[in-house]
């Protein structure tokens, strides 16, 4: 029972956390706005699904494409000029800049859509029973889709030319550019991919719960907790730790009084920091502390 719940809850975190870890590991951007990409993804898909009455899969694809372009635009318009002037403080500056963008998005959504919860009853109706637990088909499909998307990301990074160029940039930017990789395009592409993943996570969140303007706040916090537990920039670790965080939260919800499930993960982060400051899985990207 707990395992199934953990998997489903974790599948909501895994996309955002993986995209955050991707940004850390490849282009050392500390993003504060991935929760808000999820929020925007939720709104976009809501209007595609409800106003236009599109098929869920089609809506998912369109949302993904739109979020990808949004991510690319933001990178080209805002992060690129920042990169030209930042130098050593790059990672910190991106943290502050994305906080600014996230404030605009959150409060813009609040001003445009109002403090209203948007949600759909279900993407796919019906439920099935696994190990004596009945689960809606929605949750099951979302779990499968999340895992598929993560596997797709992995395959993309490992086996395509562009993916390998991205990984190479993450390892050593200068060397990659010597070998003919256009580093600026890689930055844009990586940011776009991470926006796409977060946007899709937002669609799933909207389908299972609801989407609302300040949704990004807690989503962002959770993704950051996962990334810190796993070790900054470790994508594989982030995937495992998303499920770990989901497990911790489910245990906390069961055993503690209401309101405390948000405190326990932070205490867990404190413990991890005390005993293993580089995160449970360590960091494969050693240079991350130097940036």
């Amino acid at each position, binding site marked *: 029972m707990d395992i199934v719940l953990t998997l489903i809850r974790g599948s909501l975190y895994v996309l955002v956390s993986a995209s955050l870890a991707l940004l850390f590991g490849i282009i050392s951007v*500390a993003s504060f706005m991935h929760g808000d990409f999820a929020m925007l993804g939720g709104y976009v898909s809501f209007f595609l699904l409800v106003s236009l009455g599109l098929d869920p899969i089609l809506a998912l694809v369109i949302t993904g494409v739109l979020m990808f372009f949004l991510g690319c635009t933001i990178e080209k318009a*805002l992060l690129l*000029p*920042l990169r030209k*002037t930042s130098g050593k*403080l790059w*990672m*910190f*500056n991106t*943290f*502050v*800049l994305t*906080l*600014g*963008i*996230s*404030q*605009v998005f*959150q*409060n*813009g959504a*609040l*001003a445009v859509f109002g403090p209203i919860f948007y949600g759909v009853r279900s993407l796919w109706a019906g439920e099935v029973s696994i190990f004596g637990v009945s689960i809606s088909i929605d949750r099951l499909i979302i779990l499968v889709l999340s895992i598929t998307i993560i596997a797709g990301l992995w395959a993309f990074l490992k086996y395509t030319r562009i993916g390998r160029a991205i990984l190479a940039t993450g390892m050593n930017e200068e060397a990659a550019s010597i070998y003919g990789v256009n580093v600026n395009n890689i930055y844009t592409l990586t940011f776009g991919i991470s926006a796409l993943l977060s946007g899709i996570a937002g669609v799933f969140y909207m389908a299972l719960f609801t989407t609302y*303007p300040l949704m990004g*706040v807690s989503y962002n*916090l959770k993704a*950051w*907790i996962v990334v*810190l537990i796993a070790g*900054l920039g470790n994508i594989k670790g982030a995937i495992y730790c998303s499920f770990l965080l989901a497990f911790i939260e489910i245990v906390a919800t069961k055993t503690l*009084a*209401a*309101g*405390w499930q*948000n*405190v326990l993960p*932070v*205490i867990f*982060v*404190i413990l991890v*920091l*005390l005993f293993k*400051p580089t995160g449970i899985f360590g960091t494969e990207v050693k240079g991350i*502390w*130097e*940036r």
Partner: protein
Amino acid sequence: MGKIAISKGRIFLYVLTALAFILPLIFRNEYVYSVLISIILWAAISSSFDLTAGFIKVTNFGYAGFFAAGAYTSGLLALYYGVSPWIGLIPGTLVASSLAAAVGFLTLRLHGIFAAAFSWFIAEALKYTLAALTDITRGYHGLACPPFFPGITRLPYYYMILLTYIVELLIIMRIVNGKMGFAFKVIGEDETAARTIGVNVTFYRVLCFVISCAFAGFLGVFYAHYYNVITPDVSSLSVTVPALAICYVGGRGSIWGSLPSAAIILMIFELLRPYEAIGIISFAHKYIVYGILLIIVMIWVQGGLAGAVKKLMEKYVRTTS
């Protein structure tokens, strides 16, 4: 030329200070007092924020947590033990600074981004804790805090926060211009260089963080007993974002830049207040403004107001000499 410039600056400062003391006596109006108080309060908050953001280059995303720690310590002491807010200033500051020492010790050994993210977690955890402890803190119903001064006029609060701000500036300036400030600056510029010349990097980083957060705690106590009610939201980004934006717009590492930037930003919000009443702009729009200001300052005007003034001065000096 240099000497004259300095004494001119001094005179300007004295005039400004005197003006600050006289201003509320010219405009005898509660509304003016409240605007002035909020300007100086936010300038004071952002100046202490600047100490970490501008010197050791750690942007404290959890500033609100330390602010709330001070506010709630004093508020709870007043509610349950009848402690006067004047005495509450001491435990409030102490709790905030010891929390900062713990967080700093835990995270400042590592790179700055860790401390920033982690203190943000602490602030969020504190928010959730305060919200969950409904029996003690009344959660989102808000904790009522007794006022500092009897009576309804805000005038004494104005002088209190003005004095606090002046003392804070004097302390920060003394630190910044002394040996400690040199250590802070070197750490911010180049950590390896700082280690090479024998600066204990971790110690000074934690020290800088603790001093900044001690001010946060003190100002938190003022906030609690000035507004008379606090909710767990004082520990959220809704406090950190204005502090961050005002500090960055004023200019990182300038300390004084917070005052003009707080004055300009808050005055604009005051001018827009009539539109707020009829619902054209809302709470959300203020944070959109803060967000846009942050984006502009990060990308195009990195020096902020202080940097712009410095450039202007250089131009002026060059053309006259």
